[in-house]
């Protein structure tokens, strides 16, 4: 039996993201991910009931009568969502926790996917793969995904993105669009001094279309002056006392954070992995829309 409050949450996320998918993303998701597979078929005259968005204005202008473009539906796609459930995601200083944000993102992407008649699957991971939901279609499947990501109790206390990517590569047979929703705080490094997930991600990206969604919080970027703060690492439990009242300390912290982000961006770019930066203090819709627009431009 699923507790009522979880059902409420799921329902709320469904309503919210559903609206988002119909109004804001309307069609963007489609063109972004179907870009390559959507083949132009023909131009035919507009008939009553056709989608006005499909009207080809150039042909219409030339002929004088409205014409629409017709496409051949691409074969259905598989979308995988990899969600980081490690303790470091149970954090936020504004609005919602990163984990909750991840759930909403997963919901929005899932609804977009089923609207497009795609199969959607999910992997929840910490330092191991905690939960795998095989790709399927249907609204009830999406609701299950939301429920799982919302009230999942992870056992692992660390983050291992590489393991999740490797698992994903193993279980999927076809090319997928794969969203990795994580804060990408994975302290392990490989022997070249790059983050440990780089190699696995590069391999996965050669087969799949990987989109990294990074979850950030403003307090990770800069400190506000408020005395000495005792910080405990969510994953290792290590404690560190930070003097946020000191100007030099704040400056050093901000510089380190900026360098960290820059290095992360550079890592994604070097792997040719698309990257969406989501922050807890900014509505994620804007970031998603911007990403879709950017990607659409590139697809053309």
């Amino acid at each position, binding site marked *: 039996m699923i507790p009522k409050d979880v059902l409420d949450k799921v329902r709320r996320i469904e309503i919210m993201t559903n609206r988002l998918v119909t109004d804001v993303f309307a069609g963007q998701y489609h063109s972004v991910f179907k870009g390559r597979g959507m083949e132009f078929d023909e131009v035919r005259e507009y008939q009553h009931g056709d989608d006005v968005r499909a009207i080809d204005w150039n042909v219409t202008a030339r002929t004088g009568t409205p014409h629409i473009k017709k496409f051949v539906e691409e074969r259905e796609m598989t979308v995988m969502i990899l969600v980081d459930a490690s303790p470091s995601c149970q954090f936020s200083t504004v609005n919602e926790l990163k984990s909750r944000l991840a759930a909403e993102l997963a919901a929005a992407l899932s609804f977009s996917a089923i609207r497009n008649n795609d199969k959607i699957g999910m992997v929840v991971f910490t330092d191991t793969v905690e939960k795998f939901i095989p790709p399927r279609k249907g609204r009830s499947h999406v609701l299950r995904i939301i429920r799982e990501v919302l009230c999942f109790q992870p056992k692992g206390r660390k983050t291992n993105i590489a393991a999740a990517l490797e698992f994903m590569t193993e279980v999927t047979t076809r090319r997928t669009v794969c969203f990795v929703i994580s*804060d990408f705080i994975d302290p392990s490094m490989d022997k070249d001094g790059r983050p440990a997930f780089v190699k696995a991600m590069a391999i996965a990206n050669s087969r799949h279309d990987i989109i990294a969604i990074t979850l950030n919080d403003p307090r990770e970027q800069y400190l506000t002056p408020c005395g000495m703060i005792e910080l405990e690492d969510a994953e290792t439990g290590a404690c560190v006392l930070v*003097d946020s009242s000191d100007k030099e*300390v704040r400056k050093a912290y901000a510089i380190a954070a900026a360098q960290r982000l820059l290095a992360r961006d550079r890592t994604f770019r070097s792997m040719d992995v698309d990257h969406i930066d989501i922050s807890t203090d900014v509505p994620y819709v804007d970031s998603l829309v911007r990403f879709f627009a950017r990607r659409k431009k590139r697809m053309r």
Partner: protein
Amino acid sequence: MILKTPEFLYLIPLLILPLTYLYFLRQPPSFIFPSAAFAAGLRPTWRIRLRHVPFFLRLLVLTLFIVALAGPESVLEESKSKAEGINMALLLDSSTSMAAEDFMINGKRMNRLEVIKSVLKEFIMQRPNDRLGLIAFAAKPYTVSPLTSDHSWLLSNLERVKFGLMEDGTAIGSAIAAGVARLRKAEGKSNVIILLTDGVNNSGKILPLDAADAAAALGVKIYTIGAGTKGLAPYPIQDLFGRTVYQNVKIEIDEDTLKKIAKKTGGEYFRATDTDSLKGIYERIDKLEKVKFEESSYRQVEELFDRFVLIALAILLMEIVLARTILLRIP
């Protein structure tokens, strides 16, 4: 500065050691943060170095409170001279019979006068709030020191008392009269004479009992002490060759008269047969007079706990302000 109940000081180690232990043992409250590594490389600032200062200030406050609890007080020296004590005339027989060496001090034979002087010295030092006078007598009374509260002066004058200051004899009556004369002009809650003798009244113009009547009329209380062993006492005399030899002399004390004197004036008669019993008698008189005039032997002290509490509160305030402003720690 002295402490009224220093036992409270045991609280200091009892409280402070476990508190310090717990403080350094316990994990400070913290914010869960995605990665402590983000802040790990920052250099420590002076605030971080001073982060334990509020805790130690708290301990200091606690210590001061405990000291305040122990009741610190300072004894005011000047309050002694202001204190209104009783007046006491010490009458000391210095007739040649006092040279009998029947008392011992530290196992050494001494003559009675020396023994009595040393006992009196202790007695004087025990009564710092009283006005004491000293009258030596033989055939006539001789005022060594009038009533005074300057006891160091009194003690130095006590040393002056020797045999042969005056004509030999024992004028108990005259001595009492002299003591009463000294006391009657004195203002005080109570007037007391302590008469020490080893003989029988054999000179002077006033009879002892008449003098006692006068004392009773003037409200002077007389404690009488008969000094000397019962029976024979060794008495030093010089033989033909100038050597000191001891001759046993019979001791004769007019105990009846002394008892009557004491009874008439509301005092008591004591018999001292050796140094210890003599000391005991003076201690007894000391106690008797103390019980009766308790308010006159008070000790004025100044309580200092308020200063400790004030300093502690000031430090506490400072600690609170510090811990909430420049040394603020969250959470």
